[in-house]
C-alpha cells in the first residue's frame, strides 16, 4: 500500500488518490495533421517502464489537485513529486540519491 505525499495536504493513504497513468504525453498540437499511426501512438502506446517511471496522480478524496510523481515500478517507492507542467526531474540524479 502506498503512502503518497500530496504536495498540498501532506502524506495520505493511496486509497485517497486516483491514478492518471504515464505523465508528459503531449496531445498533438494539430490533430488533423497527424497520421493514423501517430494518433495511435499518442492514444494507445505506453512506455510502461519497469524501473523509474513518471506518472500522474490526483488527490481525488482530498484537495482534488493533480501532480506528477517519479516512482520505481518494481519497489513501488516514490522518489519525487513535482508540479504538472514542470520538466521531469533528472532520473540519474534521483537514482543516485535513492542509493545513498
Amino acid at each position: 500500500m502506498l503512502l503518497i505525499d500530496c504536495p498540498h495536504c501532506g502524506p495520505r493513504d493511496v486509497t485517497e488518490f486516483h491514478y492518471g497513468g504515464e505523465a508528459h504525453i503531449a496531445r498533438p498540437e494539430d490533430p488533423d495533421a497527424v497520421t493514423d499511426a501517430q494518433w495511435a501512438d499518442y492514444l494507445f502506446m505506453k512506455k510502461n517502464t519497469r524501473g523509474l517511471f513518471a506518472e500522474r496522480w490526483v488527490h481525488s478524496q482530498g484537495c482534488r489537485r493533480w501532480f506528477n510523481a517519479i516512482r520505481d515500478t518494481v519497489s513501488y517507492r516514490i522518489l519525487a513529486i513535482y508540479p504538472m507542467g514542470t520538466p521531469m526531474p533528472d532520473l540519474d540524479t534521483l537514482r543516485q540519491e535513492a542509493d545513498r
Partner: protein
Amino acid sequence: MPRFSIFSVARNALSHHENWPRLWRSPEPRPAYDAIIVGGGGHGLATAYYLARNHGVTNVAVLEKGWIGGGNTGRNTTIVRSNYLWDASAHIYEHAMKLWEGLAEDLNYNVMLSQRGVMNLAHNLGDVRESRRRVFANRLNGVDAEWLTPEQCKAECPILNTSPGLRYPVMGATFQRRGGVARHDAVAWGYARAADARGVDIIQNCEVTGILRDGDRVTGVETTRGVIRAPKVGIVTAGNTSVLGQMAGLRLPIESHPLQALVSEPIKPVHPIVVMSNAVHVYVSQSDKGELVIGAGVDGFVGYGQRGGFSIIEGQMGALKELFPIFSRLKLMRSWGGIVDTCPDASPLITKTPVQGLYINGGWGTGGFKSTPGSGWCFAHTIAQDEPHPLNAPFSLERFVTGDLVDEHGAAGVAH
C-alpha cells in the same frame, strides 16, 4: 517418454514411486535454433508444443528466466470459460475450450479440468441487459450459455446470498456449464513434458536481456547464458511484454498491473461452482483440497513488483462476505500477486511485429489462463507460417492504428 496410465502407476507403486523418470530434460542451450520462445509460462510452452505437433518445427528452445510456470501461470485462479461477447473473442476462446476438453488425453497428463460451471452475476439493470445480450451472442457463436433467474442461481449454488435486501442484489446471472477450473501447474508441466518429448529444449534460469537484429530482421537473443541465434523469436512474457518489446525498439499498447489472489483455510465441500461478479468485483471457487480460491482486483498503478495493496484485498473481502455470509469467519492462509499485461480494449495481442521474424503474444491481462491452449495453437501457426491463423488475425498490433478494436471490457470486466 514413459506413458502415464493405470498400469504405470501400479508398476511404480511396487518401487514406492521412487523411480519415476524426470518429466523433461534440462539441456544446455545450443548456439542456434530454428525458433526461440521467450517465456516458459503456459502460453510459451503450449506454443512450443504446437510448433512441434502441428507444424513439425522441433528445433525450438523455450527460454525461461526463472522456473517454468512461475509467472502468472502458477499464480492465477484457474477459471476457464469461453463466453466472450464479440465473434473474434468467442471463436478463439471457444477453440481453447475445445482443446481443454481433450487436453489431458492429448498430453497424456492430467490437467484436472473440472467443468463445474461458471456463473457471472448481474446486480443492476445495466448488468442484466449486458449479460443477456452476451448470452444470446454466445449462443449464436455456438458457445453454451444460459440466463439464470435469482432462484435458479440459488439452486445451482445454495450458499449464494440472493436475498433482495442486499446492497447490490443478485438479479440473475449468465451460466456456462462447460466452464470451470483446471490445475495451473499441471498445464505448464504437461505441455513442457509433451514438448520436450518432441525435441523442444526447455531452458530454465535463462533470462533474455537483449534482442539481436540485423536491420529489420531478428537474428537471435542475448541471455544470461550467452547469445542464442534464431531466425524466429516469439515473445510470450505476460507482465514483462513491454520490457521485451523495448529491447526490440517497439512501443506497445500495454500497461502492467499487480493482480492478487488469496486462498482460505480448507473446509468441507460447500461451493459447487465458480461464481464471479463484475459489479462488486470478486470471484471464488473451491479447490479439491477444500480451500476457497479468491481473486482480487488490479491495483490501478503500473507495477512490476508481484505484490499489490491491502486496500484491494479489503474491498474483495467485503464483496465476498456480502455474497457468501457463510464465509464470514474463514481464515485466509496465503495471498500473492502476479503482474498482468493489459491492453486498452481488454483483448490480447497475438501478432507479427514491424521486425521480421519477431512475434508477440501478450496483453492477456487478467484472463489469459483459460486461453492457454488456443493461444499456443494460434501463436505456433503465426510463427511457423509467418502469417496469423484466422482465429488470431483480429488480435494484431495494427488494430490500434485502424481502430478495429475488440472491446471485451464487459466479458473481461472482472479480473480473472
